[in-house]
């Protein structure tokens, strides 16, 4: 029993780390652009195929991490620049902005599917079944992705913290999150700050996607499959504070994996197919009981 417990723990650690990398982007974008980004699914899927591309060219897919980071970031910048910024300038409603991210997601989904089909055609791989766990290294009896994802998560958090609190750029970004019109009067180019936040969000999501095939079998639909869970993590943590993203992700990640583990051993392994319902259920409950998320509850207690 002890072995399966630590195995579950490790699995939850990996999943929570990967989930955090996606959720931080969602919360960041929500704080800066005030829109829930449905295209986040595509950013993650892009990361998946970044790893895949690296692999078909003969390199170890972990090298897909920097590629996923860059491609995800660029993709987000593309979305911002071509669609969201023009809309923002026209003072579009949040509803139009949401629709815009959804359209981009659809567009990207088509594109990524084409990429998958072509990879399959050219390189004879099963591009709808990307799974790198068998070639992952092992450490102390666990899969390497547990360590790699957690380290990636930590580095990202630290880097973000340094950026936001130790650099002028970061200060400007935080000012934009707090009060964009005031930030503008202080000489901050709000549009450029938003661009930066989109790059960061896309890049972290791409990084998460690059790690995902080490954790589970992936295809072009995987990002879309998890978009609800990503939002869930952000919402549960609380969209008002960036720290909400990792907190919500770890809470949700552990709850899900431990619950599934427990149910699988009592009710039966089929329960895994219902995995999706857990985060949805938690999100619904959270929205009913605590719509601003856990972090704001903590903040309120501290009298902030």
């Amino acid at each position, binding site marked *: 029993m002890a072995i399966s417990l630590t195995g579950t723990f490790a699995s939850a650690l990996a999943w929570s780390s990967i989930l955090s990398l996606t959720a931080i982007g969602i919360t960041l974008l929500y704080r800066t652009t005030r829109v829930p980004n449905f295209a986040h699914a595509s950013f993650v899927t892009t990361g998946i195929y970044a790893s895949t591309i690296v692999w078909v060219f003969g390199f170890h897919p972990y090298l897909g991490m920097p590629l996923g980071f860059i491609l995800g970031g660029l993709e987000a910048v593309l979305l911002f620049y071509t669609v969201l910024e023009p809309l923002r300038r026209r003072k579009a409603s949040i509803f139009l902005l949401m629709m815009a991210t959804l359209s981009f997601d659809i567009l990207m989904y088509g594109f990524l599917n084409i990429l998958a089909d072509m990879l399959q055609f050219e390189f004879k791989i099963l591009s709808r079944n990307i799974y790198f766990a068998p070639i992952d290294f092992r450490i102390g009896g666990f899969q390497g992705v547990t360590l790699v994802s957690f380290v990636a998560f930590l580095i990202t958090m630290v880097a973000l913290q340094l950026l936001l609190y130790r650099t002028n750029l970061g200060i400007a970004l935080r000012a934009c999150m*707090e009060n964009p019109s*005031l930030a503008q*009067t*202080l*000489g*901050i180019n*709000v549009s450029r700050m938003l661009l930066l936040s989109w790059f960061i969000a896309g890049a972290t999501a791409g990084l998460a996607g690059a790690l995902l095939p080490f954790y589970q079998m992936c295809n072009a639909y995987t990002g879309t499959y998890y978009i609800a869970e990503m939002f869930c993590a952000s919402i549960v943590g609380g969209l008002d504070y960036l720290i909400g993203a990792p907190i919500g992700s770890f809470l949700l990640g552990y709850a899900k994996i431990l619950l599934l583990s427990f149910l699988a051993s009592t009710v039966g392994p089929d329960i895994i197919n219902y995995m999706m319902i857990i985060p949805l259920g938690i999100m619904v409950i959270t929205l009913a009981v605590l719509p601003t998320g856990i972090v704001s509850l903590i903040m309120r207690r501290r009298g*902030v």
Partner: protein
Amino acid sequence: MLRVENLNSGYGKLHVLYDISVECGKKEIVAVLGPNGAGKTTLLNSIFGIADIYSGSIKLDGEEISKLPPHNIARRGIAYVLQMINIFSELSVDENLRISMALSKNTSPEMLDYVYELFPILKERRKQRAGTLSGGERQMLAMSIGLVRNPKLLLLDEPTAGLMPLYVNLITKKISEIRDQKEISIILVEQNVQKALEVADRVYVLVSGQIVFKGLPSELMGEKEIMKLYLGMGD
């Protein structure tokens, strides 16, 4: 210092200002008065690059700024103190000022001291979260955020709106002090005609997007019609 010439501006298709010409020199307080909806805030928005400029010119120290984006205009030394939501409520007073300073190139540590001397109450409350300040204190902080950047031009949008008389008097007095102590131009948009006339060096009256009066405060007092019709000041 600041010269606006034949400005036509508005928001999208909504034409608000018609052929406006306004000037403000160094160490001058220019008040812009008028009824609601006249376009006073639009004038400030136009100078700051937020409104859409259809034609005309806006020159700061001889340099044309009408085509620049707002953040560049801010960096040229224009501080725009908005009427509302003009502070970072989650941060402390001191942090608000430090952020403003960190993002400005012209400033120096003396400006922080200056601002704390000008508004001692802010110094008292400097560790306090800005969102917990009273209305008047918030306005003082908002003005300080702008001032601490050592600007050439200060744009004030109804700084005394909604404040109790104590603060109205205090802030009006401080505006006058700023003009005396610093090499600065101040454009003051106000609803409170009396207070504005007390401190202004020159006055413009804006009605329905057009200037119906420009001159000295004393001259305006003599224009009974204007005072009554547009500024609500009966005999």
